[in-house]
């Protein structure tokens, strides 16, 4: 795994307001780095451009780690980093790893659990494609006590994780047809994406290079919900990265995403958490309304902070509950999840501006 700090430096030509400037040696500003570091950075960029990063790294990582640390600590890079909101392709874990560049590159380095969690999304495209694991997702609500207390507990559920496309999902997901018979689709959205931009897929009508990430999630969600394979399949929406969302929602307004234009929080809110809370329920409601308008059914929503393992355990327990309700709803006379502890019905939310 290798993060390139120099992409940030190169971006500085865009940071200067209004048009192009020439990058010659005499141009000096708070974002300029010395020629030696520039030379190193250019070399890294050239390697990346050839697509041959594998030929040099990770073999050369330890040798170059001190240089990487020097670049990272350089005031110019630090100044650039302060404007990271404008750098759309910078992973949010950049600081976490770059500040430990030398440790991470050392021969004796053993990744901590936290390191592994934070490395998600940064690994090379041709990494792991398939892995099996087990989770304890037995629900607190299920019959936990059998007559025979000495019987061995039921085995842990086995999960398989399959990365189907190194570049992420796109319009032509032909492999989705293999999943026609699944019992539930779990769709994950990062709440903190509402003000983030990413490369727009080729066929987005506007012709723009960048598109709001939340809008991209919404469009993918819609494509999946409308897919003929899933016409009878329940969906569970996991709204993830709540911790980042909580921090961010006070600085960047929710309406940074045009889909959330009608968010009208109840004021005054005494503390950060309250606004985040309202914003969360509002986002959940937007997805639920979208889902209901397409399928006429109820969307199940859960909140998570994926780097806190316990919230993921809870999410899977919720999903198993949803599966049980789906099975029982055919047998039972009375609705189903409406009375449940897990219900998050928000059909008439006070947080939406009434037209």
């Amino acid at each position, binding site marked *: 795994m290798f993060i390139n700090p120099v992409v940030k430096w190169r971006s500085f030509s865009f940071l200067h307001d209004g048009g*192009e400037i020439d990058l010659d040696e005499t141009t000096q500003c708070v974002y300029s780095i010395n020629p030696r570091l520039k030379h190193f950075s250019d070399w890294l960029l050239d390697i990346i451009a050839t697509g041959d990063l594998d030929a040099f790294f990770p073999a050369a990582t330890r040798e170059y780690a001190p240089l990487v640390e020097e670049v990272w600590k350089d005031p110019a890079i630090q100044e650039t980093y302060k404007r990271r909101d404008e750098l759309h392709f910078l992973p949010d874990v950049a600081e976490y790893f770059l500040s430990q560049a030398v440790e991470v590159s050392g021969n004796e380095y053993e990744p901590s659990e936290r390191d592994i969690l934070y490395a998600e999304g940064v690994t090379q495209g041709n990494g792991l*494609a*398939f892995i099996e694991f087990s989770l304890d997702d037995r629900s607190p609500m299920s019959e936990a006590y059998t007559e025979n207390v000495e019987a061995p507990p039921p085995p842990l559920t086995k999960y398989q994780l*399959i990365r189907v*496309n*190194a570049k992420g999902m796109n319009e*032509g997901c*032909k*492999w989705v047809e293999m999943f026609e018979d699944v019992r539930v689709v779990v769709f994950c959205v990062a709440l903190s994406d509402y003000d983030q931009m990413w490369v727009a897929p080729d066929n987005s009508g506007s012709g723009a290079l960048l598109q709001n990430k939340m809008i991209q999630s919404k469009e993918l969600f819609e494509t999946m919900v409308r897919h003929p394979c899933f016409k009878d399949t329940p969906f569970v929406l996991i709204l993830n990265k709540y911790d980042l969302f909580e921090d961010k929602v006070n600085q960047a307004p929710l309406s940074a995403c045009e889909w959330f234009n009608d968010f009208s929080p109840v004021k005054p809110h005494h503390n950060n958490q309250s606004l985040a809370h309202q914003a969360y329920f509002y986002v959940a409601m937007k997805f639920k309304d979208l889902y209901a308008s397409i399928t006429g059914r109820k969307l199940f929503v859960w909140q998570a902070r994926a780097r806190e393992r316990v919230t993921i355990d809870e999410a899977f327990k919720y999903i198993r509950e949803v599966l049980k309700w789906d099975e029982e709803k055919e047998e039972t006379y009375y609705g189903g999840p409406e009375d449940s502890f897990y219900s998050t019905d928000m059909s008439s939310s006070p947080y939406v501006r009434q037209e």
Partner: protein
Amino acid sequence: MSVAELKERHVAASETVNSLRECLKQKRASLLDTDVAGYAKSQGKTPLTFGPTDLVCCRTLQGHTGKVYSLDWTSEKNRIVSASQDGRLIVWNALTSQKTHAIKLPCAWVMTCAFSPTGQSVACGGLDSVCSIFNLNSLCDKDGNLPVSRTLSGHKGYVSSCQYVPDEDTHLITGSGDQTCVLWDITTGLRTSVFGGEFQSGHTADVLSVSINQSNSRLFVSGSCDATARLWDTRVASRAVRTFPGHEGDVNVVKFFPDGNRFGTGSDDGTCRLFDIRTGHQLQVYHQQHGDNDYPPVKTIAFSISGRLLFAGYTNGDCYVWDTLLAKVVLNLGSLQNSHEAQISCLGLSADGSALCTGSWDTNLKIWAFGGHRKII
């Protein structure tokens, strides 16, 4: 150059490419005076007559507990390997209906399987992005499972299709969701050649099917979600020999015609087409008018040993037998009384052409024989 200027140049280049494509299309249309069916009729050919006793289901192979996705015959003896949603490969003796192997796969999401030319190994691939090889003569491990003898990894997307190179148990070709095809050396597990991909001109969307020319095994054809089929020469990986546009939807399946000079395709647009590899022309479209609705997607095709018949499986459960010469449907296997109860997902003819095997989402395989006095066609 600024980003805006680059974008402008990209748009201009795309327009040039599109107008050139349009010119090519018109030039081809002007050169095409007739299609196969038109010519055959003008020569006085009449469609075959096919009655229900001409193709008879003589075996039903039961054993899978999930949808059957893929099947392949051996090149000499009458054995079949099938892959299913239940995560297993089963090897059948087609004459006795016995199962000789039931292989539990490490990743249950299998999409394709193939028999090696000597019949000693089987290969399979799927969502795990690798192609796994099993030697049928290996000893089972302590859990009773046949071990994987080789894993071919390197694809960055699912393996949709695989086929061994004829006469060699050592090489096979895969098609993948990462838009490339790969020729593998099984002995070393390494890629000999990659066709398409990031820095080469190849398919621009998932590859769904590959078919190797039995007369000249250096040539193979691939079908893709980019609505084209491409012909490749294994000696020249950098670009396709020829690209065949024409379909209006994903090309789900490609199969070489028995003489090796033509190949057939089946697509999401509901049609099958016949293309000539020497001229690049589309020779025939096999399309049934069906009232207002478009015909359902074609998922699988196979040619009879002479090429006179084209078998095509559709997503609505039909399995048409086309007279390829006159572009007429002579039989619908799917509607016969003892046929499958769900979509036919895969088809294959035995090596001597005397039997057809169909695999279905109803979890069964069926063997059909040409009955009566009809000689093998």
